């Protein structure tokens, strides 16, 4: 009994620390995105609030906390209140499964990849429900479009992750990382470059990021499916999007880039290589946002169904064939 209680307390504390660190990461990811996109557009990002603008996310959070929470007339109140939480929870829970370093996974379940995919499918609920409950035709259309986009790209994402499972022989994320460390190529990026490409494109589409952000289109339709939300609820949707980015990057790092493994050990920071790889992928997300124009909705659906799914299926067949032969 004593041991069990102690285990539970350790788990809760670890979970709290992980949550605080990830929320800080998300907040400063918004800052990093504004700064990096600004520099790529030859202007300065936010630089007034703290030294070099470092307190900008805190200022944003305070502003959103003190805004009036407007609830439009005739909305479906329970769903309206619930939808941001669905998005946020489904986005953020996957973080508990990612192995951070050799001996630390918050929750080491044997069907890790399946669980992550299931959670990202559930986040589609958050989008569609928020669009529908807003009682506004543009929010509704935005929600439907976004929901369709998310479920189309999930298929390609799932199939490309299946090839990793094929090569590693297990769905447990810690086992996948160990399999990569013991494999010939060290990271699954090299044999699975097509799957990595499909996964990254699908991940960008899952998070509704440019160039696939027509349902959200910050410069055109104000915010698409979460246009009727204000104040803290809007902040929750916003956080859910950035959490999605971090979770997808973490999943890509774990499955394709070798997880926490690195060429040499850094003494005090056990998760050093993991963080470096995640930061590189997040920079890639932001880089793409600053560079590419937006896809039209039909071009988007074409890409998902007619190009990515056949590509990932072909990759799956070839991998399975090679696995069978070798």
């Amino acid at each position, binding site marked *: 009994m004593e041991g069990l209680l102690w285990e539970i307390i350790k788990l809760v504390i670890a979970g709290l620390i992980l949550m605080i660190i990830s929320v800080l990461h998300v907040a400063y990811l918004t800052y990093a995105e504004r700064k990096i996109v600004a*520099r*790529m*557009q*030859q*202007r*300065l990002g936010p630089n007034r609030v703290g030294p070099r603008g470092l307190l900008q996310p805190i200022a944003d959070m305070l502003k959103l906390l003190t805004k009036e929470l407007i609830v439009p007339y005739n909305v479906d109140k329970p769903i309206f209140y619930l939808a941001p939480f669905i998005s946020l929870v489904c986005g953020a829970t996957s973080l508990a499964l990612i192995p951070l370093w050799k001996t630390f996974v918050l929750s080491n379940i044997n069907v890790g990849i399946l669980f992550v995919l299931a959670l990202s499918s559930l986040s589609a609920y958050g989008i569609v429900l928020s669009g529908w409950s807003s009682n506004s035709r543009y929010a509704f259309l935005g929600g439907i479009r976004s929901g369709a986009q998310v479920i189309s790209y999930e298929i390609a994402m799932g199939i490309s992750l299946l090839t990793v499972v094929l090569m590693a022989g297990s769905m447990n994320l810690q086992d996948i990382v160990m399999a990569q460390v013991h494999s010939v190529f060290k990271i699954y990026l090299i044999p699975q470059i097509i799957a990595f490409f499909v996964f990254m494109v699908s991940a960008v589409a899952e998070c509704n990021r440019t160039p696939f952000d027509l349902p959200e289109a910050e410069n055109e339709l104000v915010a698409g499916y979460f246009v009727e939300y204000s104040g803290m609820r809007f902040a929750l949707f916003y956080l859910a999007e950035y959490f999605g980015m971090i979770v997808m990057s973490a999943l890509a790092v774990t499955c394709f880039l070798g997880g926490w493994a690195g060429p040499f050990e850094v003494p005090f920071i056990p998760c050093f290589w993991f963080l470096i790889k995640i930061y590189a992928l997040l920079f890639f997300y932001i*880089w793409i946002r*600053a*560079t*590419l124009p937006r896809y039209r909705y039909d071009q988007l659906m074409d890409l998902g169904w007619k190009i990515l799914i056949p590509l990932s299926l072909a990759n799956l067949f070839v991998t399975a064939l090679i696995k069978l032969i070798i």
Partner: protein
Amino acid sequence: MSFWRKVLLLEIVDGLKLTFKKMVSAKPVTIEYYDKVRPKPYSGFRGRHALVRDDKTGDTICIGCLRCVKVCPAKCIHIETEVDKAAKRKKVVKYEIDALRCIFCGYCEEVCPVNAIVLTEWYEYVGLTRDDLYFDKEKLLQNWDEFIAQQDRPYFNPFWKPRGIPIERLPKRKREFKGV
């Protein structure tokens, strides 16, 4: 586009290279106004209004001819004069400019025969109420003092001698004006 260029997404890679280059090597074009840079406007910039102070009398040079009132397109100058019977001169009692109506065209400083009214190069002024920007004579003279304190002498506003008019047609004092 060639097949390989399309498949390997080389166009997108070119775009990515450009933005990366911009991030690394381009200098930002933002002007960091107020903290680091206070741009100095060109000579003759039409900013805050001022009445030139006469060194001898300490009051304005204005002779009360009302030319500026008549030429102002926005009708923002209001003048009241009275005749000073002792010195047999016209004296300006009230000279007010409603800066919120003004369109900053500069006609008043072009037409004034004695170069008494001027639109200085001072652009950083605010008013918290509408009254703050309704300049009366004292305020206008004070504007002049503030402005001339930070200029090097002699100060000559280009609008005081308007171009396009042959020099013989200008009034005498305007023709021979050399600056303050």
